[in-house]
């Protein structure tokens, strides 16, 4: 397989395991590229990419932008602050206006689930979902799995724990789909108020006790508490959350299991993870960030192959 089975990256759900494998193999190549003295390739010199961020983002936006520039694509940045969406323009009109400037690919972050899928039906462009509400964040899941693969090799049979706010997390959902497609086993842990009632219907087990969960896993992915997406108070205080679900050095030292620690960032130090743990040898948080660029280069490179220049806007 040397081409993706999809025309857009809307979510992990639509990918085949072979697609994920192809993205990983392509990312291996780009990871080597970004560690060369000249960290750039001319692959996408004739491609223009618009990064549309209708929700705040720092690291994902920077990571995409860097990936695009490393591939020599022309890059257009657009964020909600400058947007005409606030003036009442529809999403389709906003995007079509940008596409009229001859843009080939759109990377979009949007606060609403399904926004990327909706856009892919309505506009003539390749779409990369950079996070849509609590639905999916496929490149984050790909880079997480890729980072786990670097440490543990094949993902099949690996035990991965996701800790935190599962209800509001697109990272959790995409990670679950990605890990399952690659044969890993997934458990989630967090306050019962932040675990969806039907989570087990998508093949995930729930372990409410953090210690037991950590004793079980090969990898623990500590999610950030998404206060901005919670419409009511799901737990009494951050302090109390930290007491029950925070990963501290003391807890880490008391568990006889050498698991790897991931965090999608940004970290709330002292809430879901303490500084000593985040900066410890077990943590591969900064490797995730580096791999993020390689994974996004791979995704954009593979999707660029799907652009039909004759019909492109």
């Amino acid at each position, binding site marked *: 397989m040397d081409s993706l089975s999809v025309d857009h990256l809307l979510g992990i*759900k639509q990918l085949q395991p072979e697609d994920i494998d192809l993205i990983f193999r392509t990312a291996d190549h780009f990871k080597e590229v970004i560690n060369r003295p000249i960290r750039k390739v001319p692959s996408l010199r004739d491609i223009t990419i618009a990064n549309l961020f209708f929700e705040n983002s720092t690291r994902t936006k920077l990571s995409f932008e860097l990936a695009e520039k490393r591939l020599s694509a022309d890059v257009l940045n657009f964020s909600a602050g400058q947007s005409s969406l606030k003036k009442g323009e*529809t*999403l*389709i009109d906003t995007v079509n206006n940008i596409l009229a400037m001859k843009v080939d690919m759109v990377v979009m972050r*949007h606060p*609403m*689930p*399904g*926004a990327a*899928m*909706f856009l892919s039906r*309505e506009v003539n462009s390749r779409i990369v979902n950079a996070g*849509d*509400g*609590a*639905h*999916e964040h496929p490149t984050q899941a790909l880079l997480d799995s890729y980072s786990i693969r670097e440490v543990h090799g094949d993902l099949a049979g690996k035990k991965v724990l996701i800790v935190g706010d599962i209800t509001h997390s*697109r990272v959790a*959902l995409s990670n679950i789909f990605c890990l399952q497609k690659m044969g890993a086993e997934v458990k989630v842990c967090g306050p019962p108020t932040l675990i*969806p*009632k*039907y*989570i087990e*219907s*998508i093949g995930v087990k729930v372990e409410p006790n953090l210690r037991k969960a950590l004793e079980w896993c090969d990898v623990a992915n500590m999610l950030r508490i998404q206060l901005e997406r919670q*419409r009511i108070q799901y737990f009494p205080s951050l302090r109390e959350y930290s007491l029950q679900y925070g990963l501290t050095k003391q807890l880490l030292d008391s568990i006889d299991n050498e698991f790897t620690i991931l965090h999608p960032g940004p970290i709330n130090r002292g809430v879901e993870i303490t500084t000593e743990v985040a900066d410890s040898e077990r943590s591969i948080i900064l490797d995730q960030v580096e791999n993020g660029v390689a994974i996004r280069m791979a995704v954009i490179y593979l999707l660029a192959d799907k652009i039909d220049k004759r019909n492109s806007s």
Partner: protein
Amino acid sequence: MIHIQRAKVLCPESRFHNKVCDFIVDHGKVVRISEKPIPTGKGTVIHSKDLHLSIGWFDLGTQIGDPGFEHKEDFESGLAAAAKGGFTGVAPMPNTFPFRDNKSAIKYAIDAGANHIVQVYPIGGLSKKGEGLELAELYDMTEAGASAFSDGLNDIHNPELQKLALLYSDNLRPPLLCHPIDHQLAAEGMMHEGPTSTSLGLRGIPAIAEELRVVRDLKLIEYTESGMHFFCISTKEALKRILEANSDELSSSVAISNLVWNDERLHDFDSSFKVEPPLRSESDRKFLLKALKNGNIQVLCSNHRPHEIEAKRCEFENAEFGMASIEVFLPLLMQAFKAEDLSEIISSFTSNPRKLLKLEIPLLEEDLEANLCLFDPSLPADLNFKSKAVNYPKLNEPKGKILGVIQGRKNNFA
């Protein structure tokens, strides 16, 4: 003169039920019904390979946005759509702007249908402005011709007001229609809570939000010794509670969409299927389907909720709830049921809603005014819609064509 040839009669109240008959309609009256073919004479002849005849259909709780939301549907387009869908009577919900909560608004709606083939029996608002705070002038609206009282798809959150509404309306002719939903449990929900909502990252509307409101209302009904119609039930557990209460003063309805699809239909975020009540689980769908067939649900409604393109062609969360359905009611019926089931369920959209609203039920007898629907369930559906709505569901080779309706001297045969 209209000569209807070899039509299978679907009218459980008639001695011709399930028989194949010829009908002659002249000057607005059925002048002859014959089980034997009548020789073709003058006038319009109506025949079709699988012709069916029933009394004109009746839609409970149609949304017609007149006044206030005429860009979605006004009476002219809404009633034309209803007639095209096989209906000769509609009871529109009061969710207009301003809210239909007074006698002049009731009269406006009645007048809009006065010379139309489709008669309008407006539902009056239960609370002032539909805010759920104070009772509207129910007696005055009864005198003006209100057919029922409801706050539409809003619910009466305050149990004290619901108690007062049950007590106060008990002496009045129009029944109380309530769509049971606990809005706090359902808050910001986009679809049924279940495996599909979980995998889509969409906030769910739990089934318990409906059941909980039914349980509360059943206790209030028991306390006030009154009755109620539960409008558009969507879950198995809520219906079970209503059936357990075993009271003649209780009845319920279901929306056709809840019998055709389940929540998995939303897998691709298609906003056409974002409806209220939401498409529920397959187990709910099957239970409701069976309940309609065996009479445990008395009324089937289109739950027609028309929208303009901007209301639906947007992000799923921004899309408005509702599906335009009144003109595809028969094609949807034919998706949910087999043709032979029609004789069992026909009352649920002909005589039962009229009984509920204490309206006169048209009879199939000679020398009485004609109020008829003629349809062929096996013909391809006619998708040239009269409604202003753009949110009709996309159907794959839909079957079921309405040939026309007759009400007195009016008909809409092409």
